[in-house]
């Protein structure tokens, strides 16, 4: 099954791009988007690799369903935090540089 291979490749590239986004982008909302892309890439690899080797594997489907729910919980929580942070400070990215003592 070669079409699974295509999705595996896409998954690997998504992992790379998502990781780059998570590490390099400062805007919190964009970083969260990148986190979701990274997650999608991992899920594609998790399902695609066994699918390429053995054919459809229901165990991986169950794992990815679990993973998606965990990811959406984390995303929703992060959005609540980001919005509240913006509300209190007007910032959409975390400050860098030396930590001054407050």
């Amino acid at each position, binding site marked *: 099954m070669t079409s699974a291979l295509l999705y595996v490749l896409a998954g690997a590239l998504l*992992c790379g791009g998502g*990781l780059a986004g*998570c*590490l390099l982008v400062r805007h*919190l909302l964009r*970083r969260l988007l990148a*986190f979701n892309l*990274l*997650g999608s890439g*991992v899920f594609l*690899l*998790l399902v695609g*690799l*066994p699918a390429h*080797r*053995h054919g459809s594997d229901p*165990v*991986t489907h169950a*794992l990815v369903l*679990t*993973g998606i729910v*965990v990811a959406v*919980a*984390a995303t929703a*929580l*992060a959005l609540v*935090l*980001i919005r*509240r*942070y913006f509300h*209190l*400070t007007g910032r959409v990215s*975390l*400050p860098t540089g030396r*930590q001054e*003592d*407050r």
Partner: protein
Amino acid sequence: MSSLLMAGLLFTPLAWAVLCLLLAFRAARLASVIGMLLQMALSLALWAWVAEQGGFFYHLGGWAPPLGIGLRVDGLAVTFVLLTALVGAACGLHAGLYLDPSRPWQRYFWPLFWMLWAGLNAVWLAGDLFNLYVGLELITLAAVGLVVLGGAAPALEAALRYLFAALIGSLAYLLGVALLYAEFGSLSLVGVGEGAGSASPAASFALLIMLFGLAVKAALFPGHTWLPPAHGIARAPVSALLSGLVVKAAFYVAARVWLELGPALEAAVVGVLLGVAGSAAVCWGSWQALRQPQLKLVVAWSSVAQIGYLFLLFPLSHGVPEAVSLQAQQGVTLQVISHALAKSAMFLAAGNLILSVRSKRVEALAGVSRYLPLSLFSFGLAGVSLMGMPPSGGFAAKWLLLQASLASGQWWWAAVLLVGGLLAAAYVFRIYRASFQEVEESDPFYHPPRSLEIIPLVLALLALGLGLVAEPVLSVLGLPFGGEVLSP
């Protein structure tokens, strides 16, 4: 009997989380005390059972791995379960008195606290790679929730930093799991370990990426930047839980995966890299602790340093004789236990001191030695263990690590142990010096209730006494694990 113990151990924290969510702060506090006693009794009973009968596998739902999820209940796991019960109960009791019940959001402390406890137990006992992922996420989200409790801007900032670092770490770990599953077709640690008989490039990369993710979650230098703000801003009992137990969970998973896969995959370079990062963490963390103007940040940076020691396990357990590897494992386990006790004691004592002097700064401690000797004493006792002076658990741990590094011919790690101990002495004495400054005659301080002061003292005494009982503790860890399955 032990089947019921296991069920109780898994059920109680989750059930108490539900219960406490439905109750108001004071009622939840009462319920939690009962729950903590119950959990303590269960952990102790399970520990005694394993110490007597040996470890076993527990198949959840009656399904054997690889189809189902098996829990690995061995000496190490039950020791950490017991440690969690001890530190968790101490922090919970302290929090019940320390947190202000009039704030409406404080009621959420209790359900989050229990969820955290459930996640920790799940990780200690886990024998399944994906289950470990879910357990780690449970811990992460509960910990972030505890940090952000109340929702002030600095707490939000620290929590967001923590959340992103931890989430990326988890996904890196999951990616490794995906690659391992694709290669070996199993999710159980044992199954993957059996499959990894010979070196495989994909599995090596999977191991690398998993260790990377877990190192970020365990705040290993240079991925440590999220830790000081998060542990510094949280309320004292929360910081104690996070520093004492939460970071250890990620390290525990890393060590488990490493000991299962590392030898087969010939990943010596990775081990040395982790050792170097750990050494850098010891030096940089201690140096920063020396320079922090705030008391809790001193303690938080000290955590960065102390976690560094743990990662010496990786170079000292790879490509060395079995006996040396065992020594290193024992030393690191003692370091985990003694740091969990000492650091939670230190954070709780620091919380009491902050409560007393009404300021978070180190200079504000002037005069404390005269009017609040007890809290300062607990802080200092915990410091003794961090420095690694006899008879503390920290000393026993470092002694074992020292022997392992000399026996393996890797003497340079011993230098790290020495430098770290000296720097730890410096930052603990800095606090002492500040508190011995003389001030005006009258006592300007708030005196916290005696029970608040006793809890860190007990923990610090345990950390100190650990060195004396190191032998029996280690004997449970070293129990042979036959791998028999518990049949209810």
